[in-house]
């Protein structure tokens, strides 16, 4: 069971994962493959409903809630098929869950949520969050998110995630009790800060670069696709006008009338068929969007590595300078320019007692510093190890998923072509009878 090993899932409060906490989490992931949550539990986001209520500033608002159903896998296979447990969650709660996971597991490429607002919209699609099509696509996206988390070796064992799925009331409070909020803020700050790392791991640097490129290319793809969808819509719909004019024309013809009239109906059918075609393509766009957002998650993991590396380098640098200071004090030579050195030169040397005190202090600091460097070194190594494992997992998943997406896109196109051939063949038959 995933819970065997320890109850000490890292509590976020003071610092980043201590080495022992990391180790714990790693131990959890080293449990044999196949014990992730999804193997034990069926999860789906079954429905969406509109609610109205008072929000934080006591104003009426309308929002959508989603029904999460869970059911133990074993029960279903036993044939009893009990009623699933269920609870309602709204989008903001999903966001809260994800933010928690980002902070709690910085070395994991955390699955993204479906977009908050509709983007890359082409003219027929609305950017309205209340639009039923948008809500439906969001429902699918949220389910996908939960399934991904539940099938992740590390994430699926998280208690907060489990209670998200099973405890409707009081869950929010539980999350805040972990104290992750404070960490969330400092994390964001760190991610956005600029700092230079002297020896970053090349793999992470490359991966970050990959994330940038992926984000850029998928954005471009989605933008052009939306424009193309717009145009395709126009092409199909204008054909509907043929339906009308053929009908009018057939009224003034004798022998040609029937053929024209029925051909016109086929033109109407052709024009109408584009709605379904483009709805299916939206699904493809959603798959691309997921990886657009995944790219961001990848970048965050790489950035975190840079941060840990940077902190290590800072600690090492600090240690080196302290050692230098000790040397100078011990030998009396001033190697580097320092204010203390100048003032002591100007105002006279210190007393032997003062020097002694100083040296002692430095020794302590150096000792502490060496401990810190060791700690940070381990942190760095462990982070690199576990993050890279997840990145490799991500890469494999990405290659698989995107290939599948391309295959289903091709199948969509094939279906569209076949429909087109059929309609035009029907029309051709009518024309030939004119």
């Amino acid at each position, binding site marked *: 069971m995933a819970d065997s090993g320890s109850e000490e899932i890292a509590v976020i409060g003071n610092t980043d994962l201590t080495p022992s906490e990391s180790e714990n989490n790693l131990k959890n992931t080293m449990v044999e493959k196949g014990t992730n949550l999804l193997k034990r539990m069926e999860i789906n986001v079954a429905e969406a409903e509109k609610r109205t209520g008072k929000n934080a500033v006591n104003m009426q608002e309308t929002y959508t809630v989603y029904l999460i159903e869970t059911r133990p896998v074993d029960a279903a296979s036993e044939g009893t098929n009990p009623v699933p447990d269920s609870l309602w969650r709204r989008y903001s709660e999903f966001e809260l869950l994800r933010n928690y996971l980002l902070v709690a597991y910085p070395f994991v490429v955390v699955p993204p949520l479906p977009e908050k607002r509709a983007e890359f919209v082409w003219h027929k699609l609305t950017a309205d969050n209340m639009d039923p099509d948008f809500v439906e696509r969001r429902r699918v996206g949220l389910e996908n998110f939960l399934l991904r988390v539940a099938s992740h070796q590390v994430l699926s064992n998280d208690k907060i995630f489990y209670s998200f799925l099973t405890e409707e009331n009081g869950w929010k409070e539980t999350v805040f009790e972990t104290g992750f909020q404070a960490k969330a803020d400092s994390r964001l700050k760190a991610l956005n800060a600029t700092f230079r790392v002297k020896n970053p791991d090349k793999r992470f640097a490359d991966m970050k670069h990959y994330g940038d490129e992926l984000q850029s290319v998928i954005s471009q793809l989605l933008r052009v696709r939306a424009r193309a969808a717009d145009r395709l819509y126009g092409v199909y719909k204008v054909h509907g006008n043929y339906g009308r004019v053929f009908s009018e024309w057939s009224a003034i013809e004798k022998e040609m009338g029937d053929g024209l009239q029925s051909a016109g109906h086929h033109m109407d059918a052709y024009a109408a068929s584009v709605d379904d075609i483009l709805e299916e393509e939206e699904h493809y766009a959603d798959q691309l969007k997921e990886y657009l957002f995944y790219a961001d998650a990848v970048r965050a993991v790489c950035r975190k590595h840079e941060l840990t590396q940077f902190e290590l380098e800072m600690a090492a640098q600090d240690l080196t300078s302290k050692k230098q200071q000790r040397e100078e004090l011990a030998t009396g030579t001033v190697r580097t320019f320092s204010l203390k050195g100048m003032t002591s030169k100007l105002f006279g040397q210190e007393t032997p007692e003062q020097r002694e005190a100083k040296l002692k202090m430095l020794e302590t600091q150096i000792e502490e510093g060496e401990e810190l460097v060791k700690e940070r070194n381990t942190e760095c190594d462990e982070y690199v190890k576990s993050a890279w494992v997840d990145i490799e997992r991500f890469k494999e998943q990405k290659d698989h998923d995107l290939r599948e997406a391309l295959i289903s896109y091709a199948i969509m196109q094939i279906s569209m072509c076949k429909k087109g051939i059929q309609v035009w063949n029907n029309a051709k038959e009518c*024309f030939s009878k004119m």
Partner: protein
Amino acid sequence: MSAVPLLRGGGQLTDVRCLSEIKTPARSSEISSSSSGAMSLGTPRSLASSGQKNIQDIRHPLCAAEESASSRSADALIHPGSGAATGGGGGEKDLSLPNGTPVETSSPASSSSLLNRLQLDDDLDGETRDLFVTVDDPKKHVSTMETYITYRVCTKTTRTEFDLPEYSVRRRYQDFDWLRNKLEESQPTHLIPPLPEKFVMKGVVDRFSEEFVDTRRKALDKFLKRVADHPVLSFNEHFNAFLSAKDLNKRQGLALLTKMGESVKYVTGGYKLRGRPIEFAAMGDYLDMFTQKLGTIDRIAQRIIKEQSEFLLELREYGPVYSSWSSFEEELHDPLEGVSGCVSNCSSALDELTEDMSEEFLPVLKEYVLYIESMKTVLKKRDQVQAEYETKLEAVVFREDKKTPVPTDVEKCQDRVECFNADLKADWDRWQNNKRQDFRQLLTGMADKNIQYYEKCLAAWESLIPSLQDKQEARDETN
């Protein structure tokens, strides 16, 4: 009153019995052979030609159809020529017929392909054709004064009106225009097929581009074929000259319209029409409505082409994005490149579709609009002729001296009206049939082009699937 034959309002032309009975190419009535609006067979040729009968010896096709058929077959023998066509000696390197007429026998003009192209048209009512015309082989001519295109006009015929069974001449648009004007002048009671537009905006359209020239060639070909199929127009002397004369310009001056004299003056003005026969009113109404529908269809087609072109622009940007994506992927490199290639293939297919619609669909619509314009003009002329007759008739009816016979010019007017009506009615029915065929062909062609487009795209995507899945299976196997 009873002495004067009244024009029947219902358009019943039972006097003109020959029209409905003869199956062979119908001719206008023989009611008045001298000054009718009907067509003359042509003037006696001034060029000497052995074996060619004089006009007077040639039977009117309308009378005794069987006789004319048999007599024609007798004349079908090719007479060894002398003089008629003389191109043989002029340093031509082309192959010539034994009688010296140069006939291009290079492959595009070879008999079988010529016939193949011609046989695309249905044989209406089982009419046997004895005149085949094609327009092909456009060539550019550059001179110091101007640059222009000529087209080769090939004729194959067994008609005795022609000296030779085959002709190959070069004509430019001007010549076609001349022909049409001559036909309009000399056959004002008939519907003359339209020509493609004469003027093109010099800055906007490239008059020498392949597409423009080919579109024009097709329209010119259609024009000549329609004339050749027409039972009256195809026997017109100007048409004959157009097809056969080496140097058209020379002939221009010699064409005589002696018999036409007064009958040319059909554009009479100022006569008021009492009542249009229902038949012709219906024609006018139909033409008005049909023009409207054609206009709408033209607009729709243009709009579709425009939207498709815009879609194509987006596709041309869309495909390459997959390519640039593939450049930084490893496993996904091939699938992404594959998709890029597919999109590119679909783009090309769409380009072809749009081009085809532009070049083959739109011009035919335009042509019909022009056709209808000229038909409406003919209908108006008919109204004028009828109005003239009615006015003159009225004057005569109220003449003082009831005993004097009806003046001949009123009789002539009546003849004119009846001939016009007969010609027009026959042409109308023919036109309706041709129109039905033309549009059946046009719309079926449009459907075909769309089917081909989708088939090309389908093939592209279907061929991609295995390559997308193959790697998958290979990987799964190694796992």
